[in-house]
């Protein structure tokens, strides 16, 4: 059983990476289990300046997932590099992915640059798809020209490979994928959350203070899988797949669709052991499905 996959020149022991924003800066999960089993970790979205984010309520439940409107709460890039990475380093020995957010090209460029000298970071994940920040993420994620421009600037400034995180809230996600590939992106990751909403039945008001928020969890899996399949067909760079993955079966399905590695988000929130459990059951599921090497199944659904 070979669970290893390669991503941006780095070999992961397995393809399972906790998704940004659902795993903090990682170390708090070390209370629950030895997180060294993880393929890598995508850190909480980081901006240049510290951010509190949106007022509460920030969470609304859905039949098969949840809405969040956190709004990129984080202590700011410098503190992340100086403090959070150090804390994580004490409990996690592998390299991680820094997730970068912003509301202007310059923000992104400067934030990404902050990680240039962080040895434990092997890639930047550029979040151009956060639905929860005004004048932010989303615009970059829906306009191919703006997205390409952003990627070009970040590529100039960053010494790390740059992976671009795409929004599903678009008519044609392949246009965005092709645009960022053309601008030099080294990989794409998808999907970020779908914009959704819930209303409080008792008050008739939107539950979230931000009115709408990002929908994630098993309810988005079919949409995520379709987009990963489409993007895999459209671009040559690696595709990291996510959206609703809850089990080892979902990991395999996402890899069949074209994912070179996967990210697991909401599952961590409903079960703190989710990533550990998924990784632990991968060998059994691979055996059941006659898979001996995960590398070999990437994009298999595209054959024939």
């Amino acid at each position, binding site marked *: 059983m070979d669970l290893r996959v390669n991503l941006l020149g780095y070999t992961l022991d397995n393809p399972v990476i906790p998704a940004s*924003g*659902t*795993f*903090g800066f990682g170390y*708090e*999960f070390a*209370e*629950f289990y030895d997180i060294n089993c993880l393929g890598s970790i995508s850190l*909480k979205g980081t901006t240049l300046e510290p951010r*509190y*984010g949106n007022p*509460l*309520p*920030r*969470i*609304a*439940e*859905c*039949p*098969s*997932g*949840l809405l*969040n409107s*956190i709004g990129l*709460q984080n202590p700011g890039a410098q503190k992340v590099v100086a403090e959070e990475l150090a804390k994580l380093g004490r409990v996690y020995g592998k390299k991680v992915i820094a997730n970068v957010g912003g509301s202007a090209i310059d923000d992104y460029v400067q934030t990404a640059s902050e990680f240039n000298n962080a040895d434990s970071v092997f890639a930047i994940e550029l979040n151009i798809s956060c639905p929860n920040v005004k004048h932010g993420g989303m615009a970059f994620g829906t306009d191919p020209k703006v997205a390409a421009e952003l990627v070009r600037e970040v590529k100039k400034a960053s010494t790390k490979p740059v992976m671009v995180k795409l929004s599903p809230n678009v008519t044609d996600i392949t246009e965005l994928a092709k645009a960022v590939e053309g601008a030099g992106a080294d990989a794409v990751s998808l999907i970020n959350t779908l914009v959704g909403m819930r209303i409080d*039945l*008792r008050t008739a008001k939107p*539950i979230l203070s931000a009115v709408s928020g990002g929908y994630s*969890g098993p309810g988005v899996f079919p949409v995520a899988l379709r987009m990963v399949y489409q993007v895999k067909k459209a671009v040559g760079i690696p595709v990291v797949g996510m959206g609703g993955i809850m089990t080892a079966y979902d990991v395999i399905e996402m890899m069949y669709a074209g994912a070179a590695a996967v990210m697991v988000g909401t599952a*961590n*929130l*409903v*079960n*703190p*052991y989710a990533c550990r459990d998924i990784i632990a059951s991968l060998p059994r599921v691979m055996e059941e499905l006659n898979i001996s090497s995960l590398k070999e199944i990437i994009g298999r659904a595209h054959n024939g």
Partner: protein
Amino acid sequence: MKLTTLEVISNRQLNPRTYELILSGDIPPVKSGQFADLAVKGWFLKRPFSIADCEGGRITVLYKAIGGGTREMAGWKKGDTTDALVCIGEGFDTSACLKPLLVGGGIGAAPLYLLAKEFNAMGITPDILLAFRDKEEAYYIDEFKALGNVYLSTDNGSLGYKGNALEALKYYNLEFDRYYACGPLPMLKAFAEYSRQGQLSLEARMGCGFGACMGCSIKTKGGPKRVCKEGPVFRADEVIF
């Protein structure tokens, strides 16, 4: 804090919408003010509830059926199980308090029961002010009377003083060196404005219940803090409403 499976020992209706749920399982030591996050079949997120009591490997939850999850819980029977995170958060700080006043609004009285027991164990008989919408909403009055001096108020006067909790506090002329309040946000805000000498137990919609998602971060004078991790109990003078 711990993820574990709990078994329903009993699930008793206390008034038209309030229930007392007793759960057993492998439960670590509980501090008053901590809460449990209970999974409900058919619902995606766990539901947070204060731990109202803890004795002999059992915890008591007092809950109000207000929505889909709690209505489902009202149907739980002896022997049913729930996956739960237990003993979450930091509890009430009982240190250096000789004359506590416990203030519960509606279902917010729940965590005060265990708190009152803790004070009893310290040799202190607390004053306990319980405010309800009306008589029908009241519960656990006798249980609280066994632990402290109980004062009552209702919005419509059907039980105790007619008025809200803060009005009742003034009416009954209650004194304290620290108050411990749990209830609706407007009540907590009113108390925080009335006196800084208190601890507030806050509610928030939660994504995880263990500090991972930042779904429950409030603003405090010491920066953002998570209701599920640094809370749910905060000093009245640190919370920024």
